[in-house]
């Protein structure tokens, strides 16, 4: 019961702050609300006993990516953007499309959640063993993907430096 209440509270925080992210005029406010969303999602990971991912979410997303975002928001001049309209001209069409997407996916999920027969199951292992299990999977079964991910990060780093440095003529 307590678990369900925690889940509902975290979901409401995540969804409301996500809506605030996409409706704020000021990009700094959007970034702050995105931090709130990321914290709520990390709480949901913790609720699902994914402790390692909870830590990764906070350290990498909130501590790394969001600081990068805020840094760029500060670099880019926001005064001009504040005076302009928030939404693009096509917003009614976009809203209808998104509502249609939500309706289709929601209908399919609602119709088939009984057919899928997704019962609640106990967690995989003791809380302390989650990090161990993820680490073993990463360095045994997913050795090559980890290496590819490291190369991807290197390429992204070099690409970001070149992109931000060179002036296009």
């Amino acid at each position, binding site marked *: 019961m307590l678990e369900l209440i925690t889940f509902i509270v975290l979901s409401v925080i995540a*969804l409301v702050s996500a809506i605030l992210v996409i409706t704020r005029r000021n990009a700094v406010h959007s970034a702050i609300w995105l931090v709130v969303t990321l914290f709520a999602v990390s709480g949901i990971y913790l609720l699902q006993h994914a402790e390692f991912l909870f830590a990764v979410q906070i350290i990498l997303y909130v501590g790394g990516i969001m600081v990068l975002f805020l840094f760029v928001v500060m670099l880019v001049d926001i005064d001009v953007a504040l005076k302009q309209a928030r939404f693009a001209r096509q917003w009614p069409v976009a809203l209808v499309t998104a509502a249609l997407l939500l309706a289709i996916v929601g209908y399919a999920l609602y119709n088939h959640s009984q057919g899928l027969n997704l019962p609640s199951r106990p967690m995989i292992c003791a809380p302390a063993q989650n990090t161990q299990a993820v680490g073993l999977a990463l360095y045994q079964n997913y050795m090559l993907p980890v290496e590819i991910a490291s190369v991807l990060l290197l390429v992204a780093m070099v690409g970001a430096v070149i992109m931000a440095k060179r002036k296009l003529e």
Partner: protein
Amino acid sequence: MIPTEYYIFLGTGLFTIGVIGVLTRRNVLIILMSIELILNAVNINLVALSQYFKSVDGQVFAIFVITDAAAEAAVGLGLIIALFRNKETVNADEIDLLKW
């Protein structure tokens, strides 16, 4: 225990909000933030189904998704800085260099 479909519904909601953000906003920075929302929705689903199937594979994939998000944010923000330097705008409507 919370039923797995609740998590999937939450993921669907967050995904839709992210899609609305990408489609309607004009500020490129907020479009990138909406993409982060979409990736988080995917991660919620991955973790929920990893618990359901009693396997950590889903969580490992969520870690790869976070790696991708980091790479995408770095390159995307580098692009925005280069764009701002050349066109003095972060408005997606004004970036029409390739428009015929």
